[in-house]
C-alpha cells in the first residue's frame, strides 16, 4: 500500500538501526567527539580560544559549539541514534535468542565437538549420562526418539539485554540530572549567617579551619555549619572535603575558602605621635566594628578593602582585586575637635594618612588577623540514584555475559543402541566448553569397557 519510496526508506532505516556495524560506528563517533572535547578545552572565555587558535578558528569553534561540545548536538545526535539502534537491535535479536534456547534442536552438524562411543546398554547408559549432566547442572530434555538434549547457562544469553537496559537507565538518570539537577555556590564568612532560599533556611558558618600535615601542607579544610530556621538552630554539622552535609534534599560540599574581602577579625592599633616620632599609647587589640579607646580617641574599624583603589572619576573607594595586595582599613574616630570622623589606614604604608588626621597624631593599624570565608557548593541531583541503579544493573549484565556461558549437548543412540553420538556447542568460551565436553565424554566412557 505504501508508496515505493517510503518502503525503500523504511527498509534503509530498518537496515541501519538493526545493524551492529552502525552501533559500532556510533560508539566510535561518540568517542571521537569526546576526544575533541578534551583537546579543545571546554567552557573557556572567548579570549582563550582567540589567543590559542586565532580569529578564524575561534569563529568556527563558537559557531559549531565546540567549546561546549558535551551538551551540543555533536554529542546528543549520535547518542540518540545509539539509543534507537540499541533498543531496536535488542528487541529484534531477542526473539532469535529465545528461539535458539527454547527449541531443543536435534543434531549439531556444524559442531566441532563430537564423538561416538560404543555402549553396552542403552537404557542404563541413558540414565547414567543424564545423571552426569545433572551433576553438572545441565537442564535435560528427553526427546521422543530416545535422544537427549541438555543445556546450561541460559541466563548468559540475556546478558546483552540487561547491559543494554542498564545503559538506558544510566542515560535516563543523566537526562533527569540535566533537566532537574541544580547546583549553586555560596560564600559565607566565618561567623556569618547567610540565607539559602533553596532550603528555606539560613546557614551560619560557626567556624572555618584548616588542618596541616607536619610539613605544613594542607591536610584538610573544615567548616562547622549550623542551619538556622525561624531563628532557631535546627542542625549542626562539621563538614570537610570528603564529608558533605545532607539537608533538605541538598548536599553541601566544602569546596572553597579564602580570606574575606570586606572585613577582618582583629588588628593591632597603636597611637603614633609624629612630632616626637613615638608610639604614645599602649597598643590595643582592636576587634572588627567594636569601639576601642586609644589615647584621647575612640575608634572602630568599619570598612576593609583588600586591594585599595580610589576611583578618581567617580570619586569612590573600591578594591582592585580580592587579593590582599594593598589592604586598607577605614576607621571611624571620635576625639577632640578637628578629628576627622573617618580615615583610611593603609597596612603597607603605616601613617601615610597622617596629614589628613591631625597635625600630630595617627592611629596605625597593623598585624591584621583575617577572617576566612568558606565556599559551600550545594547541589541536588535527582538523576544520581538512577545512575547508581543503572550501574548495578550493568554489573549484573556483565556477570551474565562474561562469567557465564551458554552451551548445549545433544546425545543420540544409533546402531540399535550399540553406539552413542554426542555433540556439543557453546556460545562464547569455546575453550572452557571443550574442556568440559572432554570431561563429560571421559565420564561416559569410564563405565563402558569396550
Amino acid at each position: 500500500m505504501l508508496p515505493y519510496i517510503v518502503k525503500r526508506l523504511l527498509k534503509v532505516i530498518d537496515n541501519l538501526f538493526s545493524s551492529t556495524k552502525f552501533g559500532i560506528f556510533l560508539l566510535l563517533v561518540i568517542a571521537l567527539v569526546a576526544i575533541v572535547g578534551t583537546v579543545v578545552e571546554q567552557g573557556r572565555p572567548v579570549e582563550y580560544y582567540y589567543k590559542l587558535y586565532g580569529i578564524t578558528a575561534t569563529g568556527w569553534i563558537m559557531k559549531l559549539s565546540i567549546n561546549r561540545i558535551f551538551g551540543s548536538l555533536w554529542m546528543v545526535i549520535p547518542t540518540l541514534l545509539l539509543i534507537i539502534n540499541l533498543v531496536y537491535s535488542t528487541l529484534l535479536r531477542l526473539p532469535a535468542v529465545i528461539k535458539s534456547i527454547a527449541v531443543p534442536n536435534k543434531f549439531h552438524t556444524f559442531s566441532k565437538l563430537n564423538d561416538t562411543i560404543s555402549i553396552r546398554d542403552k537404557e542404563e547408559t541413558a540414565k547414567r549420562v543424564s545423571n552426569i549432566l545433572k551433576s553438572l547442572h545441565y537442564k535435560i530434555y528427553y526427546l521422543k526418539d530416545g535422544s537427549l538434549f541438555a543445556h546450561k547457562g541460559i541466563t548468559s544469553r540475556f546478558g546483552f539485554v540487561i547491559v543494554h537496559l542498564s545503559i538506558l537507565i544510566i542515560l535516563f538518570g543523566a537526562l533527569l540530572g540535566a533537566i532537574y539537577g541544580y547546583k549553586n555556590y555560596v560564600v559565607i564568612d566565618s561567623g556569618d549567617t547567610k540565607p539559602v532560599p533553596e532550603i528555606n533556611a539560613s546557614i551560619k558558618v560557626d567556624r572555618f579551619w584548616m588542618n596541616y600535615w607536619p610539613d605544613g601542607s594542607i591536610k584538610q579544610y573544615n567548616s562547622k555549619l549550623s542551619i538556622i530556621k525561624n531563628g532557631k538552630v535546627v542542625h549542626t554539622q562539621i563538614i570537610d572535603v570528603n564529608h558533605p552535609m545532607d539537608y533538605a534534599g541538598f548536599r553541601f560540599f566544602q569546596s572553597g575558602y579564602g580570606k574575606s574581602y570586606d572585613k577582618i577579625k582583629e588588628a593591632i592599633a597603636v597611637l603614633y605621635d609624629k612630632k616626637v616620632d613615638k608610639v604614645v599609647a599602649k597598643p590595643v587589640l582592636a576587634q572588627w566594628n567594636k569601639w576601642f579607646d586609644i589615647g584621647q580617641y575612640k575608634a572602630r574599624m568599619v570598612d576593609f578593602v583588600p586591594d585599595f583603589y580610589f576611583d578618581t572619576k567617580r570619586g569612590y573607594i573600591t578594591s582592585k582585586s580580592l587579593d590582599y595586595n594593598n589592604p586598607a582599613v577605614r576607621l571611624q574616630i571620635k576625639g577632640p575637635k578637628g578629628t576627622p570622623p573617618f580615615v583610611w589606614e593603609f597596612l603597607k604604608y603605616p601613617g601615610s594618612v597622617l596629614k589628613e588626621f591631625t597635625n600630630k597624631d595617627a592611629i596605625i593599624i597593623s598585624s591584621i588577623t583575617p577572617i576566612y570565608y568558606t565556599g559551600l557548593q550545594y547541589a541536588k541531583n535527582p538523576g544520581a540514584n538512577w545512575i547508581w541503579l543503572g550501574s548495578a544493573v550493568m554489573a549484573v549484565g556483565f556477570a551474565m555475559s562474561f562469567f557465564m556461558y551458554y552451551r548445549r549437548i545433544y546425545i543420540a543412540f544409533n546402531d540399535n543402541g550399540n553406539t552413542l553420538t554426542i555433540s556439543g556447542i557453546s556460545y562464547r568460551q569455546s575453550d572452557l566448553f571443550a574442556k568440559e565436553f572432554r570431561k563429560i565424554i571421559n565420564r561416559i566412557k569410564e563405565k563402558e569397557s569396550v
Partner: protein
Amino acid sequence: MIFSLMFFDVAFGFYAAAAVSYVAYFLFRREWIGHSSTLLFVLALLSNIATLVMRTVEIHHAPFTNLYESMVFFSALVAVIYLILEIRYKNKMLGVFVSIFLFLSFFVTNLLPFRMKVYENLNPALQSYWLEIHVATMFVGYSAFAISFIAALLYLGKSKWQNSFPFKHLPDADFLDNLGYKSIAWGMPFLSIGIVTGAIWANYTWGSYWSWDPKETWSLITWLIYAAYLHARVTRGWKKRKAAILAIVGFLSMVFLYWGVAFILPGLHSYGGAA
C-alpha cells in the same frame, strides 16, 4: 621511603633479566632456560610486591597516590595475571612479550623525576576509602587490557605470518584471539566499576558524579572503544582482525587515559604527581 625505592630497583633488574632469559628460551628452546626464565620472573614479581608492601608500611595506606606507585601496582597485577596464564596453559612463549612489556613499564617509571617517586602528603580530596576501591578496580581493568593488547598484537602477527619467525613458535591464532577476548571480558567490568566508583566518589566530594574532566572523558572514550570491540567480535561477516585492531586502539586510549591525561591535559585528576 628508601626500602621501597630499593626494591623497585631490584624488581627492575629482575624483570630485565627475565626478559633476556625469556628471549633466550624463545630462541634456543632449552627447558632449563625456560625454568630459569620463570624463576627470574617470579623473583621480579616478588620484589615488585615487596616494593608495594614497603611503600604501604612507609606511608600507612595503600600505595595508589601517584603515577609512580600506581605503575608499580599495575606491573604487579600484569605479572600475576601472566603467571596464572603460564601455569594454566603451560606455555611460556607469551612470557617473552610480557616480560619485555613489564621491563618497559619499569623503565618509563624509572624515568620519572625523583620528586614524583617519593610520597607526598595526601591532599584533602584523596583522603577517602574510595581511593583504594576506585584505583584498585581501575587498575585490575588496566592490567587486563595490557594482556589483551599483547594478545591482539600477537594475533595480528600470527594470523599474517603464522609460519615464519618469531610467530611460528607462538600459540595458534584462535588461542590468542580467545585470550584477548577473555582479558577484555575481565577488563571491561572492572573498568566499568572503576568509572562508577569514581563517579560515586566525585559525587560525594565534588558534588557531581560527572563533570567531563579529561580523565573522566578519557575513561569513557576507552570504555566506548572496548564496547565497540565486544560488538565487533560478534558482528557477522567481520574477521577477528577488526576486533584485534580495536583491542589495540583501546589499549592506546587506556595508555593516554593513564599517562597522557596526567601530563598533557589538566583537570581535577591532575594531582597524580605530574602537574
